[in-house]
């Protein structure tokens, strides 16, 4: 295991002890191993930088623009084309059909998209993880019940399910859209979790923990969870990008976020009718959306490579 092999000619005790120190001195956990792997991956850095940019944009849009995204000036700016030389200014990406700055709207739209993506992913991980863990660990009728429930939800397409559920809300915000997506999106995590828990619960260390007096809760949370969280994180990160684009799809279909809310989906939806006159109104938010989704998927890929020792 020590990376340094001893040179044959100088096997002094000091050399041995330093070699031992360099090898055995620092314990490496799964997390640390993954971090070493990630540090060397350009995919991780590229997606990471993009994501940080988008997250800062979502948290502090005023850092990027001081133009009000809702301020409309139809007379002056109706579908005005982009002015590429005016970087970071209101007319950088032109104006939309309401005479609003496309740049300001895109910057402010990041928040809704990222909130939806992150919230849905968190909710889905918690709910799916919980269901999958119970089903996998307890087996028997608990598993039968939860697995059939999962199957039933699997039968409903995410988009159709969310569409139907969100119809019931007259006033839709990022939170309601998240709820709609999470309700129909937790099954994949549940399946991954269930499979992983079933494999791990038969491990000897689980029996050993039981034999030394650990209760069910401790076995599940302290002994099994750390061993199964890897694949779940990967699935969740990759899915996050998908949720953002599903939110955009819902908004495009007119059933997601609604107008006072600024979001990429809302803007894409509004831009469709003027695609031929002013393609920039659609292309700018669509590019940002694609980049965000891509960044999350690439990050998920990098994390999977780092967490899965078999791929090394």
């Amino acid at each position, binding site marked *: 295991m020590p990376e340094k092999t001893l040179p044959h000619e100088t096997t002094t005790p000091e050399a041995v002890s330093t070699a031992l120190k360099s090898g055995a*001195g620092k*314990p490496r956990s799964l997390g640390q191993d993954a971090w070493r792997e990630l540090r060397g991956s350009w995919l991780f850095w590229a997606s990471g930088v993009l994501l940080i940019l988008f997250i800062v944009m979502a948290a502090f849009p005023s850092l990027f623009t001081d133009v009000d995204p809702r301020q409309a000036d139809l007379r002056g700016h109706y579908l005005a084309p982009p002015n590429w030389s005016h970087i970071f200014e209101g007319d950088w990406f032109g104006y939309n059909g309401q005479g609003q700055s496309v740049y300001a709207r895109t910057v402010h739209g990041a928040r809704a998209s990222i909130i939806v993506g992150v919230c849905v992913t968190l909710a889905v991980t918690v709910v799916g993880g919980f269901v999958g863990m119970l089903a996998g660990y307890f087996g028997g009728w608990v598993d039968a019940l939860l697995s059939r429930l999962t199957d039933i939800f699997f039968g409903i397409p995410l988009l159709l399910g969310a569409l139907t559920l969100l119809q019931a809300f007259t006033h839709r915000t990022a939170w309601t859209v998240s709820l709609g997506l999470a309700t129909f999106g937790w099954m994949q995590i549940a399946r991954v979790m269930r499979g992983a828990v079933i494999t791990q619960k038969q491990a*000897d260390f689980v029996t050993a923990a*039981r*034999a030394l007096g650990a209760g069910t809760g401790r076995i599940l949370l302290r002994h099994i969870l750390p061993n199964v969280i890897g694949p779940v994180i990967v699935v969740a990160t990759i899915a996050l990008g998908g949720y953002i684009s599903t939110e955009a799809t819902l908004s495009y279909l007119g059933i997601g976020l609604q107008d006072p809310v600024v979001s990429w989906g809302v803007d894409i939806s509004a831009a469709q009718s003027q695609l031929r006159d002013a393609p920039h109104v659609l292309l700018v938010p669509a590019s940002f959306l694609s980049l965000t989704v891509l960044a999350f998927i690439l990050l998920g890929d990098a994390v999977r490579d780092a967490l899965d020792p078999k791929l090394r």
Partner: protein
Amino acid sequence: MTTMEKTANVPEPRATDDGGTPLLEVRDLHVEFHTRDGVAKAVNGVNYSVNAGETLAVLGESGSGKSVTAQAIMGILDMPPGKIPQGEILFRGQDMLKMSAEERRKLRGSKIAMIFQDALSSLNPVLSVGYQLGEMFRVHQGLSKKEARAKAVELMDRVRIPAAKERVNDYPHQFSGGMRQRIMIAMALALEPDLIIADEPTTALDVTVQAQVMDLLAELQREYNMGLILITHDLGVVADVADKIAVMYAGRIVETAPVGELYKRPAHPYTRGLLDSIPRLDQKGQELYAIKGLPPNLLNIPTGCAFNPRCPKAQDICRTETPALAPVTEADGSELTGRGSACHFWKETIHG
């Protein structure tokens, strides 16, 4: 052998405070597994007992029910498919099978602990050994993280892991096989339990390390005056550390004896077969003896004595009547303490 006197000069008071009741007594224990192909009878009426400071070796081939008995005692049998249709497991006179799940959980680890065969797979790969050792104190005694860590270092020192302080944060895969087994032993010993069950603790280790680990285990047992149930198929390991031996076959105890006696004069043809199949230096060049046939299918145990299809001494009675574990006596009828044999022809086997 000095091991026989171990119980006599123990300093600990807990050997005497329960006047006569053995530390652990298994009475007529049955365990079966309900499978698709039928009911596999893994344990069919096992009786044994262990006192404080005493080592009982349970000997037998794979599938003889020795590990299942241990799991039943620990309460870690998977039920279903496992089932305990009858029997009693008395710990200090209390039947553990009648206790609630929570009561049993509290006994596990603090009063009865177990050492497993394969330490690598029995330690959680993603938790440091310090955490896993400390967990014993945090769960059972509610110590803080820091105190538990200190106790873990202390324990690692006890089981003679060099540089314990530096290695407490290491992960199981960073230790050698022998060191890992020491950590398993340390975990089992953490709360100074009254009884330790060691399920083939040295099988996964190489021979030199085997001896070290067994010595360590025997020494700690003596120090804490614990009862030890040593499950093994290695007759060599048994000879060094055990006080008494129970030989199991097809879920039943076929012979019990103090350790020296068993090796000198086995009273069951199966035990004789086991002893004859040990390679010996003075038989160099000869073919090694092996018991013919295979262990019985637990779904379909032969009627009568389960060993009859493989037994060189089998008669008609062996195929019809199940022999009970009967006391074994000298040829002149004088008593041999602790000896028993479940064979219709034990007299011929031991004296003939």
